[in-house]
């Protein structure tokens, strides 16, 4: 029997086992918590004006989406590899005809599938609550209007609709997913040389914090303070060492009702794929040398 150097079926088996493992670790309880937060936020603060109520709902929901995806991406990934090594499950897996890159890819895809499915569920719950809230608020405002001229109605509809449910919101969720995917690949790379789960979690969180402030760092330390080529070099080095997570921060725009175009979505996807590919290549180089 010939042995395939790469088998999608084996990767799928590993990814599915990872999803089952995380699901049975009751990680999805977080989803229920999220839904409760969204519903509560949707109907809280009725004294605010309608525009602010919808903005607040989006703000809270996107905050929860980010926390969910980043925490799962870092903690779940940091747990997987060291646990397989400690439990010696890795021995039985890698003593089968499973190349190490397939094992890593399976783990990454498993975590991403879970985050992706979680975000989809949360996006659906969030969209439903936002839509309901938008309709309720619109009905309330229209009922309170003294003169319901078509112009006045259209104006109110436009104002509320801008803060309501749009396709733009889903692009915001895509940005959250892409950022989480980059962070997950980063956590996997760190766990390939880390000595413990705690080390992976702490180091990855530190890199994520630096990654969020990369734009500020560049502006403060580099801009106009040295030769352009040195500045460019240092900037590129910073981007290699820590992912520029600011690229994915379009949530403020989405919350404020600004449109995120398909061009931005394509750019974010390209950057995310570049980082993920880079981290996976380094992960493989580290893991293939790992003494089990």
């Amino acid at each position, binding site marked *: 029997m010939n*042995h395939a150097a790469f088998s999608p079926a084996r990767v799928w088996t590993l990814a599915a086992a990872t999803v089952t493992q995380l699901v049975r670790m009751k990680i999805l309880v977080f989803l229920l918590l999220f839904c409760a937060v969204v519903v509560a936020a949707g109907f809280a603060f009725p004294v605010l004006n309608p525009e602010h109520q919808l903005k607040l709902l989006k703000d809270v929901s996107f905050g929860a989406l980010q926390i969910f995806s980043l925490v799962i991406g870092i903690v779940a990934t940091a747990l997987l590899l060291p646990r397989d090594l400690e439990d010696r499950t890795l021995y039985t897996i890698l003593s*089968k005809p499973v190349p190490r890159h397939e094992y890593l890819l399976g783990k990454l895809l498993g975590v991403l599938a879970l985050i992706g499915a979680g975000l989809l569920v949360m996006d659906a719950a969030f969209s439903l609550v936002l839509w309901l809230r938008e309709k309720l608020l619109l009905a309330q405002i229209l009922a309170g209007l003294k003169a319901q001229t078509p112009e006045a109605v259209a104006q109110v509809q436009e104002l509320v609709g801008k803060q309501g449910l749009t396709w733009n919101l889903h692009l915001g969720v895509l940005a959250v997913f892409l950022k989480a995917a980059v962070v997950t690949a980063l956590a996997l790379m760190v766990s390939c040389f880390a000595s413990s789960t705690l080390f992976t979690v702490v180091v990855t969180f530190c890199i994520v914090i630096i990654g969020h402030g990369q734009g500020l760092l560049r502006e403060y330390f580099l801009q106009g303070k040295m030769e352009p080529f040195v500045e460019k070099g240092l900037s590129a080095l910073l981007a290699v060492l820590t992912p520029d997570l600011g690229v994915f921060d379009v949530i403020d725009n989405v919350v404020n009702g600004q449109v995120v175009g398909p061009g931005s979505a394509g750019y974010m996807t390209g950057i995310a794929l570049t980082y993920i590919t880079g981290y996976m290549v380094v992960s493989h180089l580290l893991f293939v040398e790992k003494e089990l």
Partner: protein
Amino acid sequence: MSDPQPITPAVSVENLTKVFRGALGRKPFVAVRDVSLTVREGEVYGLIGPNGCGKSTTMKTVLGLLAPTRGRTFVFGRSSTEVASRQAVGFLPENPYFYKHLNGLETLLFYGRLCGLGGAELRDRAREMLALTGLEDAADRRVAGYSKGMLQRLGLAQALLHRPRLVVLDEPTAGVDPAGSRKIRDLILGFRGQGITVLVTSHLLEQMQEVCDRVGIMAHGRMMREGRVDELIAVENQTELVLEDATPELLAEIRALVERQGGARLVRTGQPRTTLEKLFLEATEETN
């Protein structure tokens, strides 16, 4: 007439040396020093030695889990560094653990899929392996609730799932009760009957003596002795004669004959002893 094709050994270890790098400031540790061994296809080969003598390191290198510092290892002629060399290998590690969130059947399905099996064939084979290892009743129970002995048997089931030509067993009877241990011994003998090659380590020397065709004795990372079990343990200048229902007169006659012949000397007579393991099994089977 052309020479017959040389038979490819199941396992071949050539001058293997494994050095583990020391962590910051610590000296490197030499786990295996210049070890060579060959396991022929269809034989049961036992690797024995005290703890830390390099047995497990040698096995892990054969399985490609560790890279040799010097030397080479092959499985059915393929270098252990090639993933494809593990296609025909089933491995049971010492004290195996599996994903606790899966049940027994799911565990076997998971490992089967990694070996390229699938569908009804895999499901049937998994059930067959559960029956072979006596885990049928625990098939739907989460592995987290399995005892040490059950984990060992599940480990054996996953090692045999894809019908390997070589089975590598690291301390297969560790933590298993005598009856389970006996069952594993019988399984190993069964493998030999089916032409499956076995590379096994164990501390139970009596069992190793019973099942192994050849053994290698390791100490301090080196191979100290290697050869056929019967040749290694035979006392060359002595002959054993076991009689059943011999009368005292017959025994006296034999003694007299030996004295008359001269040259030979009767060293000892008496009743052969059974083993404690056999006694235990007889006693517990009587109770059942």
